[in-house]
């Protein structure tokens, strides 16, 4: 009932060549930071990390046309997730940061270049985190700014409840309740979305 006639699907008209507009935009919001993070962690400078991001998403966008709804095809999000993870692993395994030779730090780093299994596990973890951050952005607007702040400051920033209550001018009880409500909603959505993106298993591949 909460879908306005038209609603989200109108986006398809704008990005129709990509297959499914809504999922694609969600996809970028979730996976771009994942790739960027992993590239930075591997020693890429910011500009080069962005370059890696671009390379991955260019490669993914070329495959988009291969998807067609059908009995033997996974749902769009799940399919896209698989394509992306393959592309990310491939790019990250192949590309190494351009570095000046001679620095022992650098050669040490290259020797310890993460292998495929490590990269895959890291990617699963990061992609799940990406989904959770995306979900948080969505869920945030279901609550009043006060309620959200109560959750964030206590649960994420780790500030004691009493202090947060004072800062927000609310009762301690209301902070307890707010924290619980927000987290419960986050969990509900996180489970749903990680499943849709085919990232539901917390067990990491090794």
């Amino acid at each position, binding site marked *: 009932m909460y879908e306005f006639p038209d609603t989200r699907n109108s986006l398809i008209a704008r990005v129709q060549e990509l297959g499914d507009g809504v999922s694609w935009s969600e996809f970028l919001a979730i996976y771009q930071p994942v790739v960027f993070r992993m590239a930075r962690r591997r020693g890429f400078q910011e500009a080069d990390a962005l370059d890696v991001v671009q390379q991955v998403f260019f490669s993914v966008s070329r495959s988009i046309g291969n998807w067609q709804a059908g009995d033997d095809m996974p749902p769009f999000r799940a399919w896209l997730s698989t394509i992306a993870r393959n592309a990310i692993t491939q790019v990250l395994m192949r590309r190494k940061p351009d570095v000046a030779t001679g620095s022992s730090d650098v050669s040490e780093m290259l020797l310890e270049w993460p292998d495929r299994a490590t990269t895959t596990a890291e990617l699963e973890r990061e992609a799940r985190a990406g989904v*959770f951050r995306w979900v948080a952005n969505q869920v945030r607007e*279901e609550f009043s700014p006060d309620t959200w702040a109560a959750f964030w400051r206590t649960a994420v920033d780790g500030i004691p409840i009493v202090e947060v209550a004072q800062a927000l001018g609310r009762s301690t009880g209301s902070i307890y309740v707010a924290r619980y409500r927000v987290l419960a909603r*986050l969990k509900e959505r996180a489970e749903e979305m990680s499943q849709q993106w085919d990232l539901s298993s917390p067990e990491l591949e090794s």
Partner: protein
Amino acid sequence: MKTCCLALSNETLQRLAANDLAPDELRDIEHHVDHCLDCRALLDRQMDADSLDNEIIVSLATTIESIPSVATDELLDLGPSTASLLRLLGPTDDPNMLGRIGSYEVAAIVGRGGMGVVFKAFDRSLHRFVAIKMLLPHLAESAAARKRFAREAKAAAAVVDDHVMPIHGVAEWNGMPYIVSPYCRGVTLEKRIRDQGALSVEEVLRIGMQTALGLAAAHAQGLVHRDVKPANILLDEGVERVQLTDFGLARTTDDIGMTRTGLLAGTPQFMSPEQTRGEALDARSDLFALGTVLYTMSVGQPPFRGPNPLAVMQKIANDRAPTVQALNPNIPPALSRLIERLMEKRPNQRIQSASEAAEQLRELLASRQRGGLPAGRPRSVLRTWHVATMSAVCFIAAMGFYVPWKLAATPTPQPNAAVANSPTTNEVEPVSATSATTSWNAGWGVERLDLDEVWGRVQALERRSDPDMSTNDDTFRRAIDQLRRAIEQVDRRFDQWSQ
């Protein structure tokens, strides 16, 4: 401080999590937790009840610094920003609330799109949650759209039926029209199908029948829904009741969708052929959509799909969808046929009224519940025979190659002489006919395929991705097409003949 207690029962926790408590109940609980150490400890324990809690918190705590210059930002714009929506609301005193619309306290934004936004709000006078659907300000600028929205909503409010979502009221807030309806925690049929895939035959029949009843009630008032689709069919939580929502609203969005962007707004997957052509619509357009919804429930996805809205619309106008029975053998042929009759391209060939459709669905449901209506029986022995013959003939003629599956096993000179004399029939294995077919065949001394099996195989052929038999091959595609038309022709002739 005192200790207690069972104030936070599991049920209360669940309702808290579901954001389902009235503002005063919420305040009572906050007040209680303020003074109750047990309940605080209980809520503390909920914080790391499982590993997911921890994973989420860690993810949020390590939120990345924003990425510079992402070129695709505009793609992320999914309608109006939260801030702009919150500015639409009046101020409220309740810190748990987002704001106010008229006398309603807005608790959350629960849906949004290019056309409007849906708020969850609390009605203080009646002490209940409601859903408020509001047309967005930039669209409400158009007086025509605003009036249409209000008019359609009022017309829809006049429909009182168990299977139509009631409308409490239609009003305006700062010049923006909005609709108030009950807030339900049910899921839409769309979500159900997305989560579970195809539904059971009983569910298809039950949901289909109730949807048809809702349509019948609206049609009786002269109202055409225009946007019957799984997202507009609400399944009440726990209760086996189905409600149709959003009557007539599609018309407002039609107006705006076309004028604003010059592009099609919305998903066309559940449109009728006449709708894709922009023709005038009557109740029978909704019946086509009902057929499409039944289809989607039966096989887990809509019949017409494509990479973009235009491609989907072309398919709706021109293509015949594979029968549901061909895709899901669990579907009884009678239901498959009913769906085909609802999805006839020409309105006057469809089942003509929603009440008739409801009646037929009711009968199928009753017979199903009595243990009847098995899956996969041939439609009629008579047609079975002729189609088998015809399709074998034209298949062999059209394809000109060995047919790698069962055809008639013990051919006799008549009446299907063409099959019998064809060289291919000598090489194939016997068909396992149903008993009905066998006994009828005995009179003619022949055995053959039944229509549904042939049809199913044609569909399967069309969809196969085997490069050797790919549908990308033009010759092959044409041959399949010929075969399909031949079958349809025979099917029609024998329908006429047997009446």
